[in-house]
């Protein structure tokens, strides 16, 4: 037992260091401007939560609209990624479409640096008038998340007992019917894993957002980074804004932690 208290101690140190940036932001967001100006360790609680009010619009920042864009982009990406990769994974695993090489190509994409695509995407999206639109960023993020979704869905489909699908087949159900009313309802954990991971990763995108958005479709990542450069001294407001920006994926991920863990490990390591 003595040894196990040590484990608690070591894990706590790691947890504290990992959370330090977030704790720092929360700490500053709750201090008054006076306290912030007086030094890093001066504590005076801001009873009005004025930094949060400012961040949400009271001070005239566009933060609320960045927030809305991030939500639309992330939800849109989750839906489009699922819609594309779930049927494809079924086709690859159960109907033998393309065999393993399609998965290999998808994995090859995971290896290619995303930065290769920023210039072609910029040109393509300019031609399609998708620059600075939420739709454009949904497409770019779907591109980013497709590989992981394909890997997770294929390993989830492989785990389903084939007998059920066979029975449906014998009963005369077609492929689409089998997929929609038998496979889909059994895919709960796989859908949750793809949902939570795709949500986090599209919420996290910075590179494509910085290239493909200028004002209308700007998400919180680019918004918060610009905030630091343009309102450099309003530390309290920045802290509140960044704390709020971190929250949605964090809450979602904590609620769906089981699926996040399983999805990340099955996407990377088999078994």
């Amino acid at each position: 037992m003595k040894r196990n208290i040590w484990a608690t101690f070591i894990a706590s140190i790691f947890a504290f260091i990992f959370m330090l940036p977030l704790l720092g932001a929360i700490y500053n967001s709750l201090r008054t401007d006076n306290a912030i100006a007086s030094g890093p360790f001066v504590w005076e609680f801001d009873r009005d939560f004025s930094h949060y009010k400012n961040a949400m619009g009271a001070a005239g920042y566009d933060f609320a609209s960045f927030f809305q864009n991030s939500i639309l982009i992330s939800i849109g990406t989750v839906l489009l990624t699922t819609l594309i990769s779930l049927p494809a994974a079924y086709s690859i695993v159960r109907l033998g479409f393309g065999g393993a090489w399609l998965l290999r190509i998808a994995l090859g994409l995971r290896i290619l640096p995303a930065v290769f695509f920023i210039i072609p995407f910029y040109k393509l999206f300019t031609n399609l008038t998708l620059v600075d639109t939420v739709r454009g960023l949904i497409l770019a993020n779907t591109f980013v998340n497709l590989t992981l979704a394909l890997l997770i869905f294929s390993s989830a489909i492989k785990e389903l007992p084939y007998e059920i699908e066979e029975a449906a087949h014998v009963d005369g159900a077609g492929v689409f019917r089998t997929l929609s009313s038998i496979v889909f309802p059994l895919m709960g954990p796989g859908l949750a894993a793809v949902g939570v991971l795709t949500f986090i990763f599209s919420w996290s995108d910075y590179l494509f957002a910085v290239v493909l958005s200028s004002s209308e479709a700007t998400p919180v990542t680019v918004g918060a980074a610009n905030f630091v450069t343009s309102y450099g001294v309003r530390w309290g407001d920045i802290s509140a804004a960044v704390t709020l920006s971190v929250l949605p994926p964090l809450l979602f991920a904590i609620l769906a932690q089981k699926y996040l863990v399983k999805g990340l490990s099955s996407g990377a390591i088999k078994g």
Partner: protein
Amino acid sequence: MIRQRKEKLSALALAAPLLLFLTVLVIWPVYLGVRTSLSRDLLSEFEITPAGLDNYRAVLQAPDFWSALRFTILFAIVVTIIEGILGFALALVFDRKFPGKKTLFSMVLIPIMIAPSLMAVMYRLILNENIGIIPGAIQKIGWDISIFDQRYIFFTLVALDAIQYTSFAFLLAYAALQNIPQDIYESAAIDGARYRQVVFRITIPILRPALAIVALLRLIDSFRTFDTVYILTGGGPGISTQTIGIYIYKTAFITGDFGLASAASVTLVLLLVPLMPSIIKQFRLDVK
């Protein structure tokens, strides 16, 4: 026979959205990227003209490109080693029962859930010379160092990357540890093996393929480091922390030379392509 053909058609129909997406957002962009790299394509000039291999010649002779590549490779290797070791060590800590395990497990996973760019903004808050708690604490101890100084900046960036990504290495190593059957440990205990012997003679050899994948994934991902470094240093001081991603981004969207930036992108991919088959093999993908 008819049913077989019907099944083939359904297979194609189900995969069609993926194929369409790959064509429009992968194959076509790759073509566009290569074409741009062979053109004189400047933001300041309206006309785009063929340029043959001029851009490639320019990239291969650009000292900035090579120094960015060197920095990226060095950074990727150092963070992969550090995060791999720390992540594996933390996984060993979590591979036992201890008080508060569940809560601490959720807490150490938090960096995975936070966008690197937002993490970078928070780093700026805690590292700021006037309001940051880290410089504040360093001052209280009585040290006189600036963590953004040219001498320390590499270590600062490595440490910040480790705070963000050690959790990822930890999670994968921990998941792999759970797959080791308990009875191996039990029989080792019966044979009187010490803990260290168990780790080095049993755990590490069994986990080797999984750890290799963890390292490969971290290596691939740290090769594309952009957000955090760009927001923290913008590639500076000078170009000392310019990653290849920052070099390409700046060349295209700040200098305005799309042709040169595309040539750099293509060169980067050509350097990575020979590694691809062995990486893909590591994953042991199969459809059955």
